[in-house]
């Protein structure tokens, strides 16, 4: 029966769709994002909004779908709270602009010259602080929690990227 399905190449399912966490996340994500995008589409056609706020809305929905699809993790709850509390502000705080990144890297290099003599613990702490900033909710976590949450965050980010890419891809080609 499965062979028939596979041979058709139209429909592909995993045997245990709910067990594989990656597939679970992706499915949830898509199921959250696509309706939201449709809604945005409809709203946009009805009212004229400028491009920037539209982008923000889309970004908001993207982040929201992201947070909703990964409820098992602490960072998703923090992200959700952040999104709900500031719905239409500029949410590009989750990613840093290139200039900020350059600043940070130059600071690090400058700092490292000083700290060649200092303990390695100081450097590690610096980086942990940065990691805290990157991870939603990172400020409230200690080192161990950050490390465990970062793993899941990274994987979910990768999955999200794949989804977004393929959605974009499907519509550009």
């Amino acid at each position, binding site marked *: 029966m499965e062979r028939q399905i*596979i041979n058709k190449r139209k*429909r*592909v*399912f*995993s045997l*245990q769709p709910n*067990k*594989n*966490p*990656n*597939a679970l996340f*992706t*499915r949830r994500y*898509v*199921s959250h994002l*696509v309706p939201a*995008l*449709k809604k*945005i*589409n409809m709203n*946009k056609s009805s009212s004229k909004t400028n491009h920037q706020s*539209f*982008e923000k809305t*889309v*970004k908001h929905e993207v982040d929201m779908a*992201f947070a909703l699809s990964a409820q098992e993790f602490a960072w998703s709850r923090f992200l959700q709270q952040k999104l709900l509390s500031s719905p239409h502000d500029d949410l590009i705080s*989750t*990613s*840093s602009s290139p200039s900020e990144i350059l600043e940070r890297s130059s600071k*690090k290099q400058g700092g490292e010259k000083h700290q060649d003599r200092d303990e*390695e613990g100081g*450097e*590690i702490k610096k*980086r942990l602080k*940065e*990691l805290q900033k*990157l991870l939603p909710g990172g400020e409230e976590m200690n080192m*161990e929690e950050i*490390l*465990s949450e*970062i*793993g*899941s*965050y*990274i*994987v979910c*980010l*990768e999955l*999200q*990227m*794949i989804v*977004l*890419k*393929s*959605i*974009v*891809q*499907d*519509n*550009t080609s």
Partner: protein
Amino acid sequence: MLEGLVSQESLSLNSMDMSVLERLKWVQQQQQQLQQVVSQSSNNSPELLQILQFHGSNNDELLQSSFSQFQMLGSGFGPNYNMGFGPPHEAMDECISRTSSCHMEPVDTIEVLLKTGEENRAIALKNKRKPEVKTRGEEKTEKKIKIEAETESSMKGRLNMRNTEASSDTSKETSKGASEIQKLDYIHVRARRGQATDRHSLAERARREKISKKMKYLQDIVPGCNKVTGKAGMLDEIINYVQCLQRQVEFLSMKLAVLNPELELAVEDVSVKQFQAYFTNVVASKQTIMVDVPLFPLDQQGSLDLSAINPNQTTSIEAPSASWETQSQSLYNTSSLGFQY
């Protein structure tokens, strides 16, 4: 890991001093005796094993309760008592090597303890302090004996379950079974020679090991971490990678916003299923968050999707560094159905 420990122990046995060898032989003899006793009085074995596991701890109450139960056994059990720490598993054998040497002197105190339950607390304290002191001395003198310490918190409240399981096994089986079961409940830490065995440093070491485990996991996830050594460098890579991913997501969402009006969102069904196909294949190669996934022979379909994505990615994604580009290209290369870094 257990087998390794056991084999190490046997190796160390060969190289040990005679005093220790003798001691261990004595211990094993006692162990056999204990087995006989235990088999005779099967009722008491849970309590016995309770004591066996307690001995390494500083738990007053439990010691007290278990000793009070031991009063029943009578004096004939007395001389055999201190070896009794034995047996169920190999970990306890090493406890024996520590505790037995301690208790060769204060056999009297133990006998007294067995007979009168009232002085339990005082004597229990005495017995506790002696092994602790002795272990530090032992560490310096003995060659490769590994000493085990167990933390208090993990001891409380779980012993009955474990005891019944342990008591039902033979000595050979329990070397694996009970210690595995115990490992789930205990925080099992082995102190190596020259390292402190006080509780603080043990807890710290356990914490450090946890952290290093997590770092290893992250190393597998984040591409390019293998070349970098040291926590700081790895954290750097991780930070860069997270930033890169976040930027990409942002970029893609912008692109999505641009495309949105023309978006044919009816493709959602197809997308979902493509993802499922992709992930059932790719996921198997990833570690942790992973569960067993049946692999479908979906190679061609999967690669069709992703080869389409591939050229798009290299052109459209705003400049990650060169290393990222090559890595992310290989990331989506499905020739071998896995994430390759």
